[in-house]
């Protein structure tokens, strides 16, 4: 008693009560109360996303809108290594915010809009991201983190059939493109994208209409999917989770994400950390992100140490779980580059005991995007 307490206000998405009525179990995540799972549990939620369709409330993520003239492109290209100049309207790219050492401040999806750009930011990073981006903005660049919008991911093989019935035209979208559509007399923005390795959409919709959209999805047997299955799905798809597989001390070359730096930008540079990244692109990095498959059933979770077969420590696990579609444990981590070849035998130290494993190809589960 009498001790000082810092009271952090926990945020909730517009669908909080809706999740509660669906039987969600909540966990604190990036300052939000978010569903970790619903009544079905993680494995069933995972499988129903892969075989039918699932929806994810990802409204905790930042929807950051920027408007401006050509100088906005120049400003953003200082911190984002994508080719924004040649990004077509309604096209999206996976990219990063980089610091001066080439470390990843956040990973993101950036979409060219009619008036500028929309960037989807990780919930835990969004405030800092905006601070970092703002350093490069000019007075005539407008920006807004829009909290009046929800973001719903609809993922799985039946997504297109189900959403096309409600919002005609979405079936024509190709992977990593988007457009404006009408729904309930309002504008909404739909992109063909996601983070599960499945075909699907991300729908930016006003907080006042989102429940109605979810009613429709549920009436089409789309299951609610929590953060637990979101994690197993993205890990099977070989996708990184910021704060675990990526952080400010890791650069895109080490993260095995050099494909996400535009070819032109690799040559010409002009973004934070380019000198360092140019050097790493030419000479390789000391450590690199790899896929890992334990030989047996043991799960190598985050921070599990990785050893060679003759007991030299070579790295650590950054994400690890059981992959329901692979029906085996899967993991990602960083190892010294000379041990990164697919098929290399390794040992994983779990609860003080060493278990065999192998460096594996990523993804563990084959993607089926509509190109």
């Amino acid at each position: 008693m009498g001790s000082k307490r810092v009271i952090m206000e926990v945020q909730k998405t517009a669908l909080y009560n809706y999740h509660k009525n669906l039987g969600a179990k909540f966990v604190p995540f990036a300052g939000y109360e978010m569903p970790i799972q619903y009544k079905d549990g993680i494995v069933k939620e995972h499988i129903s996303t892969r075989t039918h369709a699932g929806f994810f409330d990802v409204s905790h993520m930042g929807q950051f809108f920027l408007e401006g003239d050509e100088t906005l492109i120049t400003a953003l290209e200082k911190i984002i290594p994508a080719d924004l100049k040649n990004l077509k309207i309604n096209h999206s790219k996976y990219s990063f915010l980089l610091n001066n050492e080439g470390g990843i401040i956040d990973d993101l999806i950036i979409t060219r809009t009619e008036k500028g750009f929309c960037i989807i930011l990780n919930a835990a990073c969004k405030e800092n991201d905006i601070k970092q981006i703002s350093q490069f903005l000019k007075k005539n660049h407008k920006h807004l983190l829009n909290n009046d919008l929800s973001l719903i991911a609809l993922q799985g093989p039946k997504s297109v059939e189900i959403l096309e019935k409600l919002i005609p035209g979405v079936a024509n979208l190709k992977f990593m493109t988007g457009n404006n559509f009408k729904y309930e007399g309002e504008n909404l923005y739909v992109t063909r994208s996601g983070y599960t390795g499945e075909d699907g959409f991300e729908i930016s919709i006003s907080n006042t209409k989102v429940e109605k959209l979810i009613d429709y999805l549920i009436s089409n047997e789309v299951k609610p999917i929590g953060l637990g299955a979101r994690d197993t799905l993205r890990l099977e798809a070989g996708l990184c989770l910021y704060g675990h597989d990526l952080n400010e001390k890791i650069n895109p070359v080490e993260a095995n994400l050099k494909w996400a730096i535009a070819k032109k930008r690799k040559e010409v540079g002009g973004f934070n950390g380019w000198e360092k990244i140019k050097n790493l692109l030419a000479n390789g990095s000391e450590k690199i992100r790899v896929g890992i498959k334990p030989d047996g059933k043991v799960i190598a979770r985050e921070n599990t140490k990785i050893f060679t077969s003759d007991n030299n420590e070579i790295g650590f696990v950054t994400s690890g779980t059981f992959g329901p579609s692979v029906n085996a444990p899967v993991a990602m981590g960083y190892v010294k580059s000379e041990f990164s070849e697919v098929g290399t035998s390794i040992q994983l130290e779990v609860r003080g005991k060493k278990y065999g494993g192998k460096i594996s190809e990523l993804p563990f589960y084959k993607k089926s995007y509509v190109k």
Partner: protein
Amino acid sequence: MSEKKFSKKHEWVSLDGEVATVGITKHATEMLGDIVFVEVPDAGKAVEKEGQAAVVESTKAASDVYSPISGEITEGNKAIADDPGSVNLDPEGASWFFKLKIKDKSEYDTLMSKDEYDKFCKENPS
């Protein structure tokens, strides 16, 4: 076989002469969710009351399984190590974790009855 007794760490024990069978409760499996990894002890291992004896992992997290009673392991249930998901289906029956030869029956006597355990779970929701 004697009446099942329960621990505060959500294990159950049944006793057949000097040999106890230990598993995790249905309530425990509901809290854990989908079980994807199980490690059971080898025969011959000595365990203490409330000492770590086995491991159970769900999609969410890894947990230790404690022995509610002291003794020497006579058998670990290899069937659940091969098929961890079976623990969710029959935790208080076929999916027992290990058997042990007990040292002191009074440790068994002090564990909770079914009614006491149900009440304990209600009062300590997690």
